[in-house]
């Protein structure tokens, strides 16, 4: 286990839908080190979500995907891996949290059952152990009265709580890398701040690497060490987050930063 946790080289992804064929990712290369948080910023259609899905060898909904290049996870090439081995890796070593917690959770299964599913499959826990672990995890992500709520269904939780539950499921097998794709976009601003704090805390407590995908420069600002700016399927700028914000090199990065609406001129918030 030497080198970076994730080493991506010349990754290409061609997405085929019923209507069209899109070269969504056109040769991106990047590393994510263990314990590191890396942001991917860009507008819709820039390829940031497809890049994340490609790492897990998942296709966007209703489409098929063809991948090229190399994705090495702890030195192991993922693109040639069998589907069975890939399934074992997904969720266990690399986990993902998506934007919309309502569609990512199964509406007719209690959240306890959904958590147990993961824990039994990947960690081989017994029913009782999985339930206990589920309650612990709900507590960890800040769901009040977890023992009472574990048998509730997704619709019985608020949007912010559903996102917490998804995060709980994602970290349940202690993955090395958590991919969070727009994890706070559907949420109110105070709930967003809570989820960001939760992700920050979990990352520090568990030494988990984070790939944070967002269109919002404010969201990446406090969360990541490095940032990659994506445009039309390519990484157009990469650097330490402080450098990219203070001295953006690429015209596109500057345009994006300039378009971010500001609350006030000079950080007058207390």
């Amino acid at each position, binding site marked *: 286990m030497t080198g970076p946790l994730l080493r991506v080289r010349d990754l290409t992804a061609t997405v085929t839908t019923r209507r069209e064929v899109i070269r969504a990712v056109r040769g991106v290369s990047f590393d994510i080190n263990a314990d590191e948080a890396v942001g991917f910023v860009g507008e*819709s259609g820039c390829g940031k979500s497809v890049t994340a899905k490609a790492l897990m060898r998942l296709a966007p909904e209703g489409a098929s995907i063809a991948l090229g290049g190399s994705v090495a996870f702890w030195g192991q090439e993922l693109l040639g891996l069998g589907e069975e081995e890939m399934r074992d890796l997904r969720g266990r070593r690399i986990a993902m949290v998506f934007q919309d917690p309502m569609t990512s959770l199964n509406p007719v299964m209690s959240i306890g059952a959904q958590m147990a599913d993961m824990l039994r499959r990947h960690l081989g826990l017994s029913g009782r152990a999985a339930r206990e672990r589920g309650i612990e995890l709900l507590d960890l992500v800040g769901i009040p009265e977890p023992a009472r709520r574990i048998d509730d269904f997704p619709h019985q939780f608020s949007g912010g709580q559903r996102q917490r539950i998804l995060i709980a499921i994602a970290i349940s097998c202690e993955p090395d890398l958590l991919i969070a794709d727009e994890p706070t976009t559907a949420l109110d*601003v*105070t709930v967003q*701040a809570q989820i960001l704090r939760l992700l920050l805390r979990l990352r520090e407590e568990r030494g988990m690497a984070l790939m944070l995908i967002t269109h919002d420069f404010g969201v990446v600002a*406090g969360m990541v060490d490095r940032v990659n700016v994506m445009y039309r399927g390519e990484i157009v700028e990469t650097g330490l987050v402080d450098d990219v914000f203070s001295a953006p090199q690429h015209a596109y990065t500057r345009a994006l930063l300039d378009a971010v*609406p*500001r609350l006030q001129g000079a950080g*007058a*918030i207390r």
Partner: protein
Amino acid sequence: MTAAPLLQVRDLSVLFPARRGAPPVRAVERLSFEIAPGQTLGLVGQSGSGKTTAGRAILQLQKASGGSVRLLGQELTTMPAGALRRMRRHMQFVLQNPYSSLHPRMTIGQILSEPLQVHRSVPANRVRERVEELLELVNLDPTMMRRYPHEFSGGQRQRVVIARALAVNPDFVVCDEPVSALDVRTQAQIVALLQSLQEKLGLSYLFIAHDLAIVREMAHRVAVMFRGRIVEMGSADQVYDSPAHPYTRLLLDAVPVPDPRLQRERLRQAPPDLRFLEGDGGACVHGVDHEGAGTPEWHEVAEGHGVSCRYWPAGSSPAG
């Protein structure tokens, strides 16, 4: 406010009746504000705060349970259906989702001619000309009129939605989260478009959004809603630079800032205690018996800048 208001809302309330054992919901409670001609009032608050319901109740798309809405001096809440229909050309709606608010089987030209025909605002032989004019107004190519919504990007569709709202020359437009589905650069373009249209046409906007930064760019005055009530209202500068209500401060503090060092610091601070939001806030923080005195739960902190005395943390004082 010096100019006679274009829109005057007084004690507007919306009550959703009890349903299947659930208690009735006071979605909007005694909302009062005015909007002057050519001005924008920003209405901010979290989801469920009642801001969308308020917008719908003002446009008479949602029945109010009490209060008054006057547009151009005319009372809307008691207006007969026929008169209200004629009144609708003065007030229009721009919604959040530019994907679902345009009919997929209608060309852009058909979409834009529809309101012109409904309101008979131009003679039949001038409809085409007016559609071209509208497309130009929102900076779209008039040749677009033969094409269908799916051929356009989110930002272009939102321009079409805006053009449709403007087709009948309204005085007042309710914009409900008009840019929240768009990318940040497209957002900036739509905001600039709305501003230039306001200048050109003297429009008044009620601009509803959960994004406080966008509202700051758009609004002359801002009202902060929480649980169906306005808890603070003032000029944009007053509310953003010297927020007086703890809920407003909470909202402003939660907005991520695009400055890594500052934002890291903020995320590391102890999270705010949100428990004070759970109760109804109890008694007036100033110790005034509003119910007994029959006065609104409202206190001026500066000229044109007021704050509700409800939903303050226990033991806090407005001075602190």
